[in-house]
């Protein structure tokens, strides 16, 4: 429960540190702080409870996702130190925003009230708007920020309208109350419309088709670290919130929306994968692949009835960690070669075997090849989907998995078979650490998936 508070406090601390001229210490403080919070978070394990008038709920679900998000946050923070080295004066600002983003994400995994949910989304989004547009002189970054902002606020409007309708029907913002209301009475169309609007805005946030358009553009234009955050923290938090909302309050929404869910899932997976096929930009490729992963996670959402939190968590974990590794490598490559194209990876296998191997593993994990975490993620998701009778959509998903192998392997192919220009290549220890750690986690989770699956 305190995770959120401590994290907010840490954000504040970062700002204050700047004022106290402790610029050098900010990064260590932030990392250490996050690590401590991570530890505290773990101690919350098994303590179920609702706090502050059910505003914040602590249960294993929230703790697990908080842990994952904090882990990713630590990685991001570690990477940030180097990423913003040219703008040292603002590092505290950046760090503070990163941590605030994390706050938003944490709020999203542990809310108990629509107000917290709404605020969480907004904190997350607004911070990301800022980060997306934070490369001030880069028109692409500006454009990304603008696109994200415009579409995001539009989606917020829809979300709010949905919330209002729900409130109108149920008279409460509390998830428990809504849940009770929905199960006790036969909700009217107002409720379904509201839930539909919330659903749509959630689909937007997780970049599911046909509300995915913002994602590739924004991912591509934003600074890579921000993209990493959007792809990992934001998406995972959104899915956690999605799950939390729809597994509790809005479970009755599924029957009328069944076809919508199915269509959206199939469409998301298909569009994500097929569009990724022809991309030249690594980031953009990852963006589309992220869309397709959102589709796979949607597969978990539509099988909600069977309590798929485990599967979703595992998939999120696998996806988040592999994406993190991939983005970290992308940052390294971009910093050294100044390009985010797939061509930039040419010959990496010879020049930096470690990076190439790591990226290969990350890609294989995303493609779902055993014994990496991604494989088990896919396995659990498919397994849940089949268990809940979504056989055909699973077949679609499988066919798409095959397609996805193509573009993941394209990168691997580029690294190992193409020749490169010789340039100096530096790799900061923080990056090596993050990448190495991610790879380790991928293997661990792949070989001992029991470590994570038994959690929820």
């Amino acid at each position, binding site marked *: 429960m305190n995770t959120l508070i401590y994290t907010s406090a840490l954000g504040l601390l970062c700002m204050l540190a700047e004022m106290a001229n402790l610029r050098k210490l900010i990064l260590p403080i932030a990392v250490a702080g996050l690590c401590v919070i991570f530890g505290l978070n773990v101690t919350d394990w098994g303590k179920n409870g609702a706090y502050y008038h059910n505003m914040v709920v602590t249960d294993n679900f929230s703790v697990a996702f908080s842990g994952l998000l904090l882990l990713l946050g630590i990685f991001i923070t570690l990477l940030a130190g180097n990423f913003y080295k040219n703008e040292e004066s603002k590092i505290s600002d950046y760090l503070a925003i990163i941590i605030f983003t994390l706050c938003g994400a944490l709020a999203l995994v542990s809310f108990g009230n629509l107000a917290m949910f*709404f*605020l969480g989304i907004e904190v997350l989004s607004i911070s990301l708007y800022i980060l997306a547009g934070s490369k001030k002189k880069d028109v692409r970054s*500006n*454009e990304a920020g603008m696109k994200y902002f*415009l579409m995001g606020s539009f989606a917020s409007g829809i979300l709010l*309208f949905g919330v*209002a309708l729900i*409130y*109108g029907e149920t008279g409460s913002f509390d998830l428990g109350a809504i849940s009770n209301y929905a199960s006790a009475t036969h909700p009217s169309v107002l409720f379904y419309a509201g839930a539909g609007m919330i659903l749509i805005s959630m689909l937007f946030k997780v970049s599911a088709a046909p509300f995915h358009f913002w994602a*590739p553009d924004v991912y591509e234009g934003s600074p890579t670290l921000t993209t990493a955050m959007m792809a990992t923290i934001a998406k995972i938090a959104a899915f956690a919130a999605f799950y939390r909302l729809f597994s509790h309050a809005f479970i009755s929404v599924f029957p009328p929306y069944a076809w919508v869910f199915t269509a959206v899932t199939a469409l998301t997976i298909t569009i994500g994968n097929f569009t990724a096929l022809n991309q030249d930009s690594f980031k953009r490729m990852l963006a589309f692949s992220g869309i397709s992963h959102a589709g796979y996670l949607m597969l978990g959402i539509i099988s909600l009835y069977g309590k798929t939190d485990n599967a979703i968590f595992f998939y999120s974990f696998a996806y988040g960690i592999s994406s993190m590794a991939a983005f970290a490598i992308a940052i390294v490559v971009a910093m050294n070669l100044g390009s985010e194209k797939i061509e930039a990876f040419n010959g990496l296998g010879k020049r930096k075997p470690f990076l190439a191997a790591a990226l290969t593993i990350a890609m294989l994990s995303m493609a779902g090849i055993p014994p990496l975490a991604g494989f088990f993620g896919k396995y659990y998701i498919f397994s849940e989907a089949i268990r809940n009778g979504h056989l055909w959509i699973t077949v679609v998903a499988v066919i798409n998995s095959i397609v996805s192998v193509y573009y993941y392997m394209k990168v691997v192919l580029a690294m190992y078979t193409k020749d490169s220009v010789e340039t100096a290549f530096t790799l900061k220890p923080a990056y090596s650490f993050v990448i190495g750690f991610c790879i380790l986690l991928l293997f661990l989770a792949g070989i001992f998936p029991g470590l994570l699956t038994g959690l929820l």
Partner: protein
Amino acid sequence: MMNVMLSIFSVVPIQYYIFISAVLFCIGVLGVLFRRNAIIIFMSVELMLNSVNLLLVAFSAYHNDASGQVFVFFVMAVAAAEVAVGLSILVTIYRNVHSVDIDELKSLKH
């Protein structure tokens, strides 16, 4: 005030508030879709948010529950924050391209 209050729902059913909010919301949507000027789009979004606020307040009164009104505060807060951030993004864009026309922002595609 009491008389007014009572008369409101006796004269104007809650449905009407729902409808007016929906219409207002749609006008906001129309604005977003219709215009190219980013500032006006922002304003249209504000309009959308306001329609929601109106709805919330109406429901709040309807349910006789203050939390709806409290929520409006949060919406306002968010709106304010959004506007601040949005406008600052706009300013940076304007500095770079000297335009607030969203249709000129097309460098990221495919």
